[in-house]
């Protein structure tokens, strides 16, 4: 974390709440990008990001600077969105049995640019944590350690999960609409 951000946090904790505006200006769009993928309705997503920032403000003294502020706020935004989804009891498709697939088959499908629409549909059927994981890894190119912090998971398990999600995406593309 940058030193001036640490100083700002110290000032906010000292009672200068208006300095939190800096973090809102700088990181709200990033947090919104994570939330809006899980909660596509604009108004709901905006409210959840606001909730996340209010929670972050109220817990600012617990921020130890072990991660960047960006990663920290993304984690709060992610957990806020996931608990909102849980309350709404949204259903996501779960595929437990994994038929025998070769990695080549999966790799080819995920590289085939003529299947983008099927892939988009398949992604919406993934669980929130799976959607967030592949987005942060493949689209945002975030390091696995940051993703592990945001998703509250062990970095070692993420590679396995990514591998499983790729296979699941392939299955959803091929048979998703029938499941």
């Amino acid at each position, binding site marked *: 974390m940058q030193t001036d951000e640490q100083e700002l946090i110290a000032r906010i904790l000292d009672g200068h*709440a208006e300095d939190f505006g800096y973090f809102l200006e700088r990181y709200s769009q990033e947090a*919104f990008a994570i939330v*809006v993928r899980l909660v596509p309705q604009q108004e709901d997503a*905006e409210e959840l990001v606001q909730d996340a*920032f209010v929670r972050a403000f109220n817990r600012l003294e617990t921020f130890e600077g072990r991660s960047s502020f960006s990663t920290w706020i993304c984690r709060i935004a992610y957990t806020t969105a996931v608990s909102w989804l849980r309350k709404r009891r949204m259903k996501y498709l779960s595929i437990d049995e994994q038929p025998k697939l070769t990695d080549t088959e999966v790799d080819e499908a995920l590289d085939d*640019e003529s299947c983008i629409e099927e892939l988009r549909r398949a*992604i919406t059927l993934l669980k929130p944590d799976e959607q967030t994981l592949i987005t942060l890894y493949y689209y945002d190119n975030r390091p696995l350690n940051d993703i592990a912090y945001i998703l509250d998971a062990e970095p070692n398990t993420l590679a396995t999960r990514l591998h499983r999600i790729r296979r699941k*995406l392939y299955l959803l593309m091929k048979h998703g609409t029938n499941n």
Partner: protein
Amino acid sequence: MEQTTKDRALMQALAPKESRQLPSNFPYLTLRRIKEEQRLEERRQHRMAIVTTVVVSLVGIAALLYLVGSILWQSLVSICNQPDAFVLVWPTLFCLIFFALVNHWLSRQYRKV
């Protein structure tokens, strides 16, 4: 799991179809909500402090009356029976009212700042 040359379709599928943005007044609205919640929390704490003070005072008075109530009552009765018992009452009452008014005026002045 190299990302550079493969997974082109996956990367394109993950890209948002349209650019979604927060409204430009989002930071302002959020800060306003934070300040509002802070104000409500302060009021809640203030109310809690008043309730705690009242409860503690009542418990203290009750304990005092329970422990030394009869002695206090006897002392009061004996003081009231003396002829010059109320000499200091009127000046004391005047001082109390005067200081209460000064206190009220000062707190009004302080809140204006």
